[in-house]
């Protein structure tokens, strides 16, 4: 722990998703992949080659895609319903609510290219509302893995979990952060770096930036704890309350609007249990300007140095 992160090698987590799904499907014939014409962008070409009959492509029809997923589960199949996150969650929100969450259908929703992964394509293709939309729904764990290792572990966990869930994946490269062989536990944060002055909490593409920020803070004599919190719901209340009590300040960062996402979920726990100063970093409630995901994250104050500055400022309010 507290070793510098090797950021030279970056991995597209979709590859880990696809490889894991293909491995699981080889062992479990009930697994099917459902998609909305998104075979390539969901990295399902390998699945299609190996299990052509088990790729259910409904065409560009997300509402039907989610309903079909619920029906497949009713018929004893184990569907991974894959689509670009903005369309999967936004277009078919009511289907996710009624057919999946309320019906408690054993369907794994996989939102691909979430956040601002489609940066330059603009806000129609950004998915910076999905944490908020998904986490208000009962019965639906919401999970944003931070690297390829956690992605593979979460995809495997989903197959063993008897119920619906939402996996939020990106296409933006991220370094390895968790150890090989890591086992995913829903609702459980991972301590990536110990510290006592402030806690940095993130998930998805922001976790490695938080680790970098902690390294910068260490150079300035500030000991930052880093928690990777892939599960936005059910949120890890124990880890959050401990962070509040033991470090006295919390910074969150997410590739999502600051309204309703990870930061909001953390703040809800903090306010109810252990009020301490917080700073929520994310997209500041606007439709983002043109730019790549990396550019926009930097632009919105989530470059590692900017995160470190935000943490240092926050600590003064303790």
């Amino acid at each position: 722990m507290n070793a510098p992160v090797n950021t030279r090698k970056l991995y597209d987590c979709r590859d880990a998703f696809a490889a894991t799904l293909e491995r699981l499907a080889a062992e479990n014939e009930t697994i099917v992949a459902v998609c909305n014409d998104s075979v390539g962008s969901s990295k399902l070409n390998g699945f299609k080659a190996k299990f052509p009959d088990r790729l259910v492509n409904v065409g560009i029809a997300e509402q039907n895609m989610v309903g079909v997923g619920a029906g497949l589960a009713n018929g004893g199949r184990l569907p991974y319903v894959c689509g670009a996150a903005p369309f999967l969650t936004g277009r078919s929100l009511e289907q996710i609510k009624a057919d999946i969450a309320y019906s408690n259908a054993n369907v794994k929703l996989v939102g691909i290219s979430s956040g601002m992964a489609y940066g330059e394509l603009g806000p129609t293709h950004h998915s910076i509302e999905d944490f908020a939309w998904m986490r208000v729904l009962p019965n639906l764990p919401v999970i944003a893995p931070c690297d390829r290792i956690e992605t593979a572990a979460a995809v495997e966990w989903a197959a063993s979990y008897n119920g619906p869930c939402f996996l939020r994946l990106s296409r933006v490269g991220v370094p390895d952060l968790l150890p090989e062989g890591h086992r995913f536990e829903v609702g459980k944060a991972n301590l990536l770096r110990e510290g006592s002055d402030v806690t940095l909490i993130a998930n998805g593409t922001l976790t490695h930036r938080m680790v970098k920020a902690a390294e910068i803070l260490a150079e300035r004599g500030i000991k930052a704890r880093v928690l990777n919190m892939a599960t936005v719901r059910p949120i890890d209340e124990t880890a959050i309350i401990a962070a509040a009590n033991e470090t006295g300040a919390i910074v969150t960062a997410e590739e999502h609007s600051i309204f309703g996402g990870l930061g909001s979920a953390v703040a809800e726990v903090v306010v109810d249990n252990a009020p301490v100063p917080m700073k929520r970093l994310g997209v500041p409630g606007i439709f983002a300007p043109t730019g790549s995901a990396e550019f926009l994250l930097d632009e919105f104050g989530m470059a590692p140095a900017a995160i470190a500055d935000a943490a240092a400022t926050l600590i003064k309010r303790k």
Partner: protein
Amino acid sequence: MEISDLERIARDIRRRDIQAVYEAGAGHVGGEMSVIDLLAALYFHVLRIWPDQPKHPDRDRFVLSKGHTACALYVVLAERGFIPEDEISTFLQPYSRLNGHPNCNKVPGVETNTGPLGHGLPVAVGMAKAAKLSSANYHTYVITGDGEMQEGSNWEAIMAAAQFKLDNLTLIIDHNRFQQGASLSETNDVAPFRPKLEAFGWEVTEINGNAMAEIVPALEHRGGRPHCIVAHTNKGHGISFMQDRVDWHHKVPSKEQYELALAELSEAL
């Protein structure tokens, strides 16, 4: 079962349904009266089901996409032995599992939660596709309202069913010509259904959906394509003052109207 037996069962269900709506002070009685003959035929003659094993993997699947007529489904499920008959008196009461729209996690025999319109057919397509993938021989039936066919999600599902060659899927459109506040022809006249469904690659049968002798063979029909039954029905069927009156979509009968309705249904027995 004889056609006359099914007709008697349907009349009993109508009586119990209108009693439940009257006592609860709420419900969707017009659309329940139009769909009850179809439900009676399905549950008492057509569906291969085991009430003591509601999750049996080989059971035929049925989805009531027009979930607002849940009360009729509850009465049918009670008469068929999925839930206790005396539970119907809890309809809409606090903490009753029989709320205004069916809940598959609480009510045995319900396959998926419906209520928002345009949801049941996509789910039914998934059920039928699952049977194809697993070589199961169950059949999937889904009933939509005709107004409900204005929802675009249904047409996504209709395209998919043809593409997937789901000859194990039957869609029944309860074509009573009225939606909540108006006739279809006054809002978005999606009828006639036959040419549209045929153009989308379905086989279409048109029947009188309140005539048991026409309902049963249509439900039992098997062809090489997904099958749509356009069931021409009457909203409020069986009760003279409700019939084809749009205000009976979710109106509750007064004491006098309730007694008159029961008398008419008894006369028909």
